[in-house]
């Protein structure tokens, strides 16, 4: 197989994209690792790598020290984790019946139904979030109707915009398709004969779901969870727009280090920690998925 010609083809075809990704992805990320060990410059950016006074490399672990010695950042990570976890769970609950319905409808309708899930996703992200500002705002029809209903049963009117609830709604909304698609791809492959067999053996619909469908769909659940959880963890625009005084997430703090505080090294530290966690979680999801398959 590995003839010289073959090897030439391999590098001719695989080489250019590989080189591009090394230059514009791998190297920047490595630089970032280094940046987290440097001092910040007086007016933003980074201090010179070689300090002029001592003539040595000006590196420091102080930025990591700051992260680990101050609980507030860990607290924020936990808070972001909670937001992302709730988002993932809500996405799963909403997406599962939808994916199941699509997978079980007639073949000719499936493409359309899938397209209908992706379609909103092709319009601008910020616009979609912004629409929720209108829906959840105090003057919206939805909120006033809700409050009227709550009023009749004697509950105080609620505000929805600028609350953690609004952040979750926004997060669920923009990430829902990432959950539906892998679930659908998985559920579509299920053999209906299995469910028939279960029914013949006397299992009711509820049991059939928990004993047959759900265990079989676990790889799809894990894939969807990873695709929702990871992006939701690092987001900053949604808490910015919908969050009010309590919705801040770790993404906002990272953005602050680069755009408010001119502290790039500390911003790099926070990004590094976030990435390590995200990659670890993705790895875990892949591992669990593989375990459940065998």
């Amino acid at each position, binding site marked *: 197989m590995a003839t010289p010609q073959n090897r030439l083809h391999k590098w001719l075809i695989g080489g250019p994209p590989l080189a591009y990704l090394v230059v514009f992805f791998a190297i920047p990320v490595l630089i970032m690792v280094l940046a987290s060990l440097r001092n910040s410059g007086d007016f933003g950016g980074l201090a010179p790598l070689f300090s002029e006074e001592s003539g040595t490399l000006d590196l420091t672990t102080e930025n990591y020290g700051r992260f680990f010695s101050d609980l507030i950042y860990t607290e924020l990570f936990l808070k972001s984790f909670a937001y992302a976890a709730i988002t993932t769970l809500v996405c799963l609950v909403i997406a599962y019946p939808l994916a199941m319905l699509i997978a079980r409808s007639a073949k000719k309708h499936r493409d359309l139904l899938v397209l209908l899930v992706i379609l909103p996703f092709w319009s*601008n992200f910020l616009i979609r979030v912004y629409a929720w500002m209108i829906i959840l705002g105090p003057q919206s029809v939805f909120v006033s109707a809700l409050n009227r209903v709550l009023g009749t049963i004697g509950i105080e009117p609620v505000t929805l915009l600028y609350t953690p609830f609004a952040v979750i709604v926004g997060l669920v909304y923009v990430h829902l398709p990432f959950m539906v698609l892998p679930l659908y791809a998985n559920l579509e492959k299920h053999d209906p004969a299995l469910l028939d067999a279960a029914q013949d053996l006397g299992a009711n619909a509820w049991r059939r779901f928990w004993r047959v469908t759900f265990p079989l769909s676990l790889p799809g659940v894990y894939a969807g969870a990873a695709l929702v959880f990871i992006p939701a963890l690092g987001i900053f625009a949604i808490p910015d727009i919908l969050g009010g005084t309590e919705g801040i997430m770790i993404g906002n703090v990272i953005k602050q280090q680069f755009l408010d505080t001119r502290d790039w090294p500390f911003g790099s530290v926070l990004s590094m920690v976030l990435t390590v966690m995200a990659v670890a979680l993705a790895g875990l999801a892949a591992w669990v998925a593989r375990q459940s398959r065998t």
Partner: protein
Amino acid sequence: MIRRSRGLWAAAIFAYVFLYAPLVIVVAYSFNDSRLNAEWVGFTFAWYGKLFHNEKMLQAAWNSLLIGVTASVVSTVFGTMAGYAMYRFKMRLLPLLILAPIAIPEILMGVSLLIFFVLLNISLGMISIILSHIAFCIGFVAIVVRSRLAGMDESLTEAARDLGATPWMAFRLVTLPLIMPGVVAGALMAFTLSIDDFVITFFTAGVGSTTLPLQIYTMVKIAVTPEVNAVSTLLMMLTLALILIASKLAPGSLRAQ
């Protein structure tokens, strides 16, 4: 046999309403005759008229389009090559570099590219945005192309080779037409990702390179006028048209996703 309970239908309809309610609001309010975007006042086309006289917005739309087209063309070429290479040969590093940009938080990529461009003294602007967009689009194209190749009949290419075609001819005349739906789907995906990207653009933008998402972000944070609704309605129509054209050109390409 079809197993659909009423509960399943209700849940699915709820999900679709959830997905579409905001879009309906956005479109409806683009015709609302009130600057405040709060309650319905009356029907008007005025915001569309205003939009076409708003130079900031038009410039931003033009920038987005230019970036989207350039980035999707280049990343489709690279992505197709990468997808083909991963399918054909044993590559160790490539699959990792394809998957990593998709797996890591977007903000990290934006920030690291910002530092990278500064260190290399590449001034921030259209070029830095395009280079960044290509970097995150390649992976998506490669994955779509790769999955398309996986479903392909190997013997066709071999037959072409047996009939004396060079590897390049075999690729161009046999393989490429077969994977075309995947390539088109990948290109489409790259274009949408690029035109919708906010986070990475936010960090890599510079002189004269305000894109639509950046413009919309400033507008959403400041007093929002229905011009934002008008521009996003048009944008939705554009993407819808693109999807329809793509599905005419390459039926089944959407299924590849």
